[in-house]
């Protein structure tokens, strides 16, 4: 649920979000009974435009997890634009964002919609392997030219077939306020030593150098730092092996990661384990903290619009020159087709249209907190942060999805996240933490 909860948290007032979160999980308790319920709890609505010809040959059903105001509006705009462009009806079933992720297993086995919102990478590959998704290689024959190789790779299942059409992504980096850096004469750090020195200087200046908040259910935020450290020290290949359950967590390579992490953990804002990430972001906005490792979605926590132009970010500093800053953590959201889809051809037609730059522009016009995944996406309306983010992603050699998207989400949330949260309370060399994680790895990666 992790980063899923992010989008939810942002667009709605807090208490409602937490409540829906709980509702999601409690709803999930009826795991096997869930499928029919899930259909009932979402609100069905035919797309606004072109009503009348119900059940035509071009009709397609669309399961959306965009239950929050902004994504809901954006997906609504997307489906109406498709209806206008193609004349085909779209029946949308909007499901609560977190409930959707919690119950995806039951949903895909029940009576899912034809086209469904989902995430790229491991989380898509897992369901593809379980034959719950429909391969869409023919769609990629049409749309492939509009995407980078990295985006294409993210859309492939382990069997080499395409299963996913990306819509947008957002990079992780080190975010800060430009005016604070100007005021104090700080410079964005590109290598490790200057990064640690920058933290030290901020501490001297009475700031919390690294804003941190992983209380509530936010312990996923720690994965951003871990992923980047591992990518910078051990490189993309090892990181993906580790995430895929193929490398040992007691590998000495990870001792170096924990050692580097310990150096900056001392600069974390105090009380991080009881704070929500939104409050950590707020301390950066308030200039009480110097910077924070987070994603572009941080901008969604801005309540005072005048701050938006003052926000900036830099890539996580390089550590081993062999890897430099060649990898960017940029989670990608998009669409899959369920294996039980009733309108396969119409669904593919819709996916083909969604894979065009024009479609991405329709979405981005409503929800500007992301960057279009297509290389042909219209960037003219992007704000400075979006431009920079798009540039950072397109120049990356490797794109990773995020800890809980590149790996088994159960393993990450039940073993790795609590392990790191516990370790951050009193950082040591991490040997015992890694050992604990390693001892439980085989329970999750069996086949």
């Amino acid at each position: 649920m992790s980063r899923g909860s992010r989008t939810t948290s942002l667009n709605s007032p807090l208490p409602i979000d937490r409540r829906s979160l709980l509702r999601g999980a409690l709803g999930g308790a009826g795991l096997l009974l869930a499928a029919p319920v899930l259909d009932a709890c979402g609100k069905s609505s035919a797309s606004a435009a072109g009503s009348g010809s119900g059940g035509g040959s071009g009709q397609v059903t669309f399961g959306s997890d965009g239950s929050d105001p902004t994504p809901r509006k954006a997906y609504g705009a997307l489906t109406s634009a498709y209806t206008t462009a193609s004349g085909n009806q779209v029946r949308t079933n909007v499901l609560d964002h977190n409930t959707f992720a919690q119950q995806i297993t039951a949903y895909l086995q029940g009576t899912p919609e034809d086209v469904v919102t989902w995430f790229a990478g491991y989380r898509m590959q897992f369901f593809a392997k379980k034959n719950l998704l429909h391969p869409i290689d023919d769609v990629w024959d049409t749309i492939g030219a509009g995407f980078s190789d990295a985006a294409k790779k993210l859309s492939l299942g382990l069997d080499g077939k395409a299963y996913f059409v990306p819509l947008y992504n957002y990079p992780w980096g080190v975010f800060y306020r430009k005016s604070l850096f100007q005021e104090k004469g700080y410079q964005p750090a590109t290598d490790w030593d200057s990064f640690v020195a920058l933290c030290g200087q901020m501490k001297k200046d009475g700031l919390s150098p690294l804003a941190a908040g992983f209380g509530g259910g936010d312990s996923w935020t720690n994965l951003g730092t871990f992923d980047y450290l591992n990518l910078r020290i051990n490189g993309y290949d090892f990181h993906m092996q580790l995430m895929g359950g193929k490398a040992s967590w007691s590998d000495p390579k990870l001792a170096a990661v924990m050692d580097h992490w310990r150096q900056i953990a001392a600069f974390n804002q105090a009380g991080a384990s009881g704070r929500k990430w939104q409050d950590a972001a707020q301390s950066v906005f308030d200039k009480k903290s110097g910077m924070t490792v987070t994603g572009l979605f941080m901008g969604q926590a801005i309540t005072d619009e005048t701050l938006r132009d003052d926000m900036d970010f830099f890539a996580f500093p390089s550590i081993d020159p062999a890897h430099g800053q060649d990898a960017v953590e940029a989670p990608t959201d998009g669409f899959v087709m369920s294996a039980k889809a009733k309108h396969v051809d119409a669904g593919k037609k819709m996916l083909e249209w969604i894979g065009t730059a024009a479609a991405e522009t329709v979405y981005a016009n409503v929800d500007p907190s992301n960057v279009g995944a297509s290389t042909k996406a219209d960037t003219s309306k992007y704000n400075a942060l979006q431009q920079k983010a798009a540039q950072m992603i397109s120049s990356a050699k490797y794109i990773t999805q995020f800890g809980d998207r590149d790996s088994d989400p159960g393993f990450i949330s039940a073993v790795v996240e609590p392990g790191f949260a516990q370790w951050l309370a009193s950082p040591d060399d991490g040997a015992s933490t890694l050992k604990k994680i390693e001892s439980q790895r085989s329970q999750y990666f069996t086949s």
Partner: protein
Amino acid sequence: MAAGERDGRMRPAKGSGMALIADVTGKNASSQSRTSQRGSRMRLLSVADKAFLAVLIGVPLLALLAFVWLPALASVGISFTQWDGIGLSGLHWVGLQNYKNVFTNYPPFWPAVEHNIIWMVFTALVPTPAGIFLAYQLDRKIRFSRVYQMAIFLPVVLSTAVVGFIWEIVYDPDHGLLNSALGTNNPSGKHYIDWLGDPHLNLWAVLVASAWRHTGYVMILYLAGLKSVDPSLREAAAIDGANGRQTFLRVIVPAMKPINVTIIVVTVMESLRAFDMVYVLSGNNGSKQGLELLSLLITNNTVGESPRPGYGSALATVLLVVSMAAIVTFLVQNFRKERQA
């Protein structure tokens, strides 16, 4: 007061209390005649009556079997398997492997057991007696009794999840009521209290929140019991020269046995099923250090994108066995005593 004297004084009191209840419900009369008339009464029933009775008993029985016992037994069965929740083909029999992992290779398990026990002991020792004490005071017809009663009972009306949200606001380290009042809300300051983050502190912080609600619950249960105690018992005790404390401990409490049993069962149950408040306060991945509970671990493993129903079921079975052991032992002992009395 000698033991024999006390017993002699108590028995009639208890007897009359029971007689009172029995007379009110009218069970006393029927129960005496039931045994002798049972045979003839069955014969008196028409076929239609019997069919009606069968439906009346059969439907709830089937519902109970289908919706309670079947899932419970299925859960026990699944606990011996490894399964990803997708299709039955992925179901592998692994014997006791899940249990072995739970007991030997699952770091949050033993802390969770410990926290459940602490939860139970704390609830039994602090909010439960507090609720009884408050009920006793409120029963003495003091001024504004109704107002107090309502105020103390108010948290019980709220769902435990909502109680969690309320206390989350109180405990927030930066903007929370408590830290602001104590002046301990500066992260770079010397005294910064992270109520819900500090693993040595958060369980107690949550227990205070839980006690806040539980006290009211016990109070209302006990108050209802006190109101139903026959006033003549107090008069009799007063005539015999018992003081307030003696009357309460030796006359009222024994006369309220059904309520006492209810309260003990409720306390044990609430402690074992403690979930929603901690879920709210510790966030959706639940296994926050210091706040691990068995119910949370079960949820963590059975709900989510890549659930492990087998492992979660093994945890659930452990909790089921513990709960049954606690409640059954208590009830059996209790009924045995009653029969002997």
